[in-house]
């Protein structure tokens, strides 16, 4: 008892004061698209050639700009590293959640993520039921949101075991066949109003699993998410951004 108390008093406060700080300079971040012209016309295909999830669509005659789907991106860093023209660069922002799936597709005309202030049924507080469907790194990052560093409860975010009490269904992992029914049952046990958040590239698109016999193609094969959090796994700040965005919280809305 005494040593615990002493340690408790001795340790400095570890809760992060800055809300949604950029990722550390060492972090590889996620790709972003600038307005610098792409030289695909002269034959460059470097970014798309090395993208493991085919997240990058090179320009065509009909669509003259590169498009990068953050919902498929596993954050390998390849495209940001090889792009000679700085059309694809690194973004270390942690305000990455969006409310429409198509907003995750970055283009030169729409280089940054679009956070709209559409209304939310919740304001001060939400209770979250988390369901993992096969991405345990994201489980750890969601759990980290509740630790004293990120301290989700100061934003009025609480996790619950029972879907009956939950406002938010937070889903990670690619939602393979055997988890699809439990996922739907969890949703149906929740009251109204409710919000669904897909967290991580695997939940959004299946990531590398997409296309197999297990139908692990992402949450949207069975549910319609209201908020999408990219990243593989997303940083705890990115997950908190998704939750605060679902709440319509002012902190999530400024970019």
């Amino acid at each position, binding site marked *: 008892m005494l*040593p*615990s*108390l002493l*340690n*408790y008093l001795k*340790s400095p406060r*570890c809760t992060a004061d800055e809300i949604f700080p950029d990722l*550390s300079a*060492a*972090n*590889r971040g996620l790709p972003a698209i600038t307005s610098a012209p792409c030289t695909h016309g002269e034959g460059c295909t470097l970014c798309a050639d090395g993208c*493991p*999830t085919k997240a990058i669509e090179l320009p065509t005659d009909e669509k003259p700009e590169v498009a990068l789907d953050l919902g498929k991106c*596993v*954050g*390998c*860093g390849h495209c940001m590293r090889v792009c000679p023209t700085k059309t694809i660069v690194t973004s270390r922002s942690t305000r990455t959640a969006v409310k429409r799936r198509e907003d995750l597709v970055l283009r030169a005309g729409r280089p940054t993520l679009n956070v709209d202030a559409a209304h939310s049924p919740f304001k001060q507080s939400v209770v979250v039921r988390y*369901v*993992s*469907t*096969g*991405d*345990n*790194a*994201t*489980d*750890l*990052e*969601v*759990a*980290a949101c*509740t*630790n*004293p*560093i990120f301290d989700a409860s100061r934003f009025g975010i609480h*996790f619950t*075991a029972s*879907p009956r009490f939950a406002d938010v269904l937070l889903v990670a*992992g*690619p939602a*393979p*066949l*055997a*988890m*699809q*029914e*439990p996922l739907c049952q*969890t949703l149906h046990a929740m009251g109204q109003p409710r919000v669904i958040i897909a967290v991580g590239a*695997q939940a959004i698109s299946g*990531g*590398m*699993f997409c*296309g*197999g*016999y*297990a139908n*692990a193609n992402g949450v949207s094969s069975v549910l319609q998410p209201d908020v999408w959090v990219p990243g*593989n*796994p997303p*940083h705890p700040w990115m997950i908190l951004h998704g939750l605060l965005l679902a709440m319509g919280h002012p902190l999530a809305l400024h970019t």
Partner: protein
Amino acid sequence: MNTQPGVFTGALKMDEVPIMQLRARLKSEIGDGNRLGLLTAADGADGHQLLTLIIQTQSGGVSLLNSPLPHDAVSYASLTPDLPQAHWFEREIADLWGIRPVGHPRLKSLVMHDSYPTDLFPLAEHVTAATARKRSRRAPYRFTVVQGNGVFEVPVGPVHAGIIEPGHFRFSCLGEVIENLEIRLGFVHRGLEERLTRCDWRMMNYLVEAASSDTAAANATAHAFAMENLCSVPAAPDVRKMRYACIEIERAACHIGDLVGICTDLGFGAGGTAFSALRGDVLGVAELLTGTRFMTSVIVPFAHKYMPAKPLLIEATRRLRTCSSQLRSILPLLLNNGAAIERMEGMGDIKTSLARDFGLVGPAGRASGIAYDVRKVIAQPEYEQVEWQPPTYFEGDVFARTRVRAEEAIVAMELAADMVSRITSSHEPDSSPATLPANSVGVGIVEAWRGELIHLVMTDSHGRVSRYKIKDPSFNNWTALSIAVRGRLLSDFPLCNKSFGLSYSGTDL
């Protein structure tokens, strides 16, 4: 032929052992103290074949046995009656190939749920009409029913109360006491092994990192060694140091993370807070060295991506040493805490004999007197620069598992600091071959934080990956969890479960 995986020694060859002799051969090998690394199936030229990987715990070599089934055959005599540790392997083979182990004491599906078509055996590709006719459909899953006056069932999951993976636990209880626990997994079966044979071999590393994404570094390393073993291309010394350092950092972060969980399950909030802040620091080192908290996309076959510059290596070494001494100073909060010890001591114990029969690996094995540690058995010079021994206890209870994991976390950070400090250049070597060799096989074995992790890769006559098998350490340990809680109170289950800290997705694949 024997060879040392993980350490480049040239091409690995398969020994053919007739299926009729396999049982006797395995019985004598395991009786001599060798380990059943994995048992799986593959398609051969003339039908299905069983593949067995044996690890020689004395010499550190491995042998790979190939046992073709007779033409069109879809059954063989089960190995489980002689070798209890084969029981889940055989269930997995039955699920994915439709090959029946005749005489298996408890044959039921493991990863293929009732939501899949009952005639879908996803990995059996070269199936003749005759084989298809002989295969029986997968039977619907039935839980074992425990009968008796006052026995009732408590179903838990697949969606669990905490922020963890899905799986189903069926407790049969008499009052508060657990009489039997049946663990039903497979909820996160994502068809990983099939995906691996479909994707470009240069992209496989991204997929194996997601096998159990909390073990990305160890999976990527086992994959890299397997691919290098396949191609007979050795990894550069700095690359090897970096890979092993990542595995050690992963080990420290995950063990400390589970100490948080154990504190939470004990209702010891102050301890949990101290450990979770430290876990954040360790992840910060991972981020510094690799660019992500989970060390993804850097460990690749034949190379290492984003090799950090010298000042970062020095900084990482310093921070790892600080974290390690900090863990030393806060550990007594948990390990010398009378109230905590009272809950952990004698709880959920697994005897050495049982641990041996079921082939337990990793910290759970070492807490039950099985000293086996890949880092000691398979010679790896990177691990020989620092004097260390894997902690081993004999009690096999929650307290022993907790101590093993805590002590391993300290050693892991010291080993990682040593390896990082020895990296000499930030040059990124790349020795990727243009194509993979045909009809070859490669094995990579590492000690992941949960224990022995094995990757096996095979190519066909065109040099395409035709079979890829991952054996996650959890695969060996789940049965021990269900035995450890027998006769215990239902309310003690979460603590027992956390002390094992097993992976659902690594098992389900």
